[in-house]
């Protein structure tokens, strides 16, 4: 077995080259390069975690914004409905007032017209009375030759008219 048979001649060389090569591996590769490789991997992990967190935060913000939008939407809807209701009530009130005013106007006009009609019909009646009284005097004078007084004729016409 050369491992044992050659040990006396080779142990020093084996240990020397082992320490030299492993020293190179440890100090140059292990200490010098591996931490940089590891740092890159760690940085990537950190970046991924950070990005995920940011995405989560953005998601939460989006949810918040949506909730905010919904409440504002509901609020503005309510406000619009309130404005609409108020406008409706106002319009109803205004039209009621106008209607009432128009009613009153119509009523006064009707009243005035009725009064005018009455006055006209009274005037017409008076006219008819005068004409009838004159006609009655003329008839009395023609038939009987008696000049009936204006007073009597008028009374007779009134009586006749009252009887209809």
């Amino acid at each position, binding site marked *: *077995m*050369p*491992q044992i048979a*050659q*040990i006396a*001649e*080779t*142990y*020093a*060389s*084996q*240990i*020397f*080259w*082992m*320490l*030299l*090569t*492993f020293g*190179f*591996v*440890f100090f*140059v*590769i*292990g*200490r010098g*390069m*591996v*931490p*940089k*490789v*590891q740092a*890159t*991997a760690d*940085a*990537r992990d950190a*970046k991924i975690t950070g990005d995920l967190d940011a995405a989560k935060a953005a998601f939460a913000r989006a949810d918040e914004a949506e909730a905010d939008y919904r409440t504002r939407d509901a609020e503005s809807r309510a406000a619009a409905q309130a404005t609409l209701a108020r406008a409706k009530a106002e319009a109803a009130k205004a039209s009621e007032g106008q209607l009432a005013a128009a009613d009153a106007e119509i009523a006064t006009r009707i009243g005035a017209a009725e009064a005018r009609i009455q006055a006209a019909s009274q005037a017409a009646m008076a006219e008819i009375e005068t004409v009838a009284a004159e006609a009655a005097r003329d008839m009395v004078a023609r038939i009987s030759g008696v000049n009936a007084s204006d007073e009597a004729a008028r009374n007779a016409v009134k009586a006749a008219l009252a009887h209809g």
Partner: protein
Amino acid sequence: MAESGKIDPMHQFAIEPLFGTDHLSLGGYNIAFTNSALYMVAAAVVLWIFVIGGMKRELVPGRWQMAVEYMTGFIKSLLIANVGEGGKKYIPYVFSLFMFILLANLLGLLPLGLIGLHPFTFTSHFTATGVLAILSFSIVLIVGFWKHGLHFFSLFVPHGTPLPMIPVIFPIELVSFMVRPFSLGLRLFVAMTAGHVLLKVLAGFVINSSNAGVGYGLTVGSASFILMIGISALEVLVAVIQAYVFALLTSVYLNDAENLH
């Protein structure tokens, strides 16, 4: 390798100095650049190239960067699972350990013999695995005494041990603790050696039975060859598992040092 029809399955573990560095020495010790050292350098260089591909540092990684980050992430989760958040500071060490052993095991399995090269698995030498095991164990000791001081010895007295049992339990726990570097280093060495010996023995069967005649070659040889295919796949699995076991046990031991228990 084959001397007069005889195949030595152990020859693959022989260490040979390369490039005439037989007598290179440092402070009286021979540090010849051997085939073992060549494969250590190869494993380090391949690992270096692999990790360079992961240094693009792009936010959206390519395939290569993804592979490197997968490996570092794998070691990170291994340490977090076994040691907790405090285990992150051992990522460079355990990553180096795992990848270096893994590449050593896999490079040793490459069928380079087909193009005339001699593949060598330095993790099949306990002089190599021992260095790594002692390193891991030393880190456990240093961290343990650094963090907990002499309180670290309470590791050898499990929770709820009745007082009269402590003199018995303490030496048992101490021995099981002291055995750790040996089990750590020997496990890897034994697993890699056994696998490579088995492959080489089966390969010897194929060659020798074919040399003995067509009948032997078709029966014993082809059966051995089919078995070799399966065992080669198993060896790839063992290469990964042994690297993982080494890293896992290191992190389990680090957990003792970090958190006691």
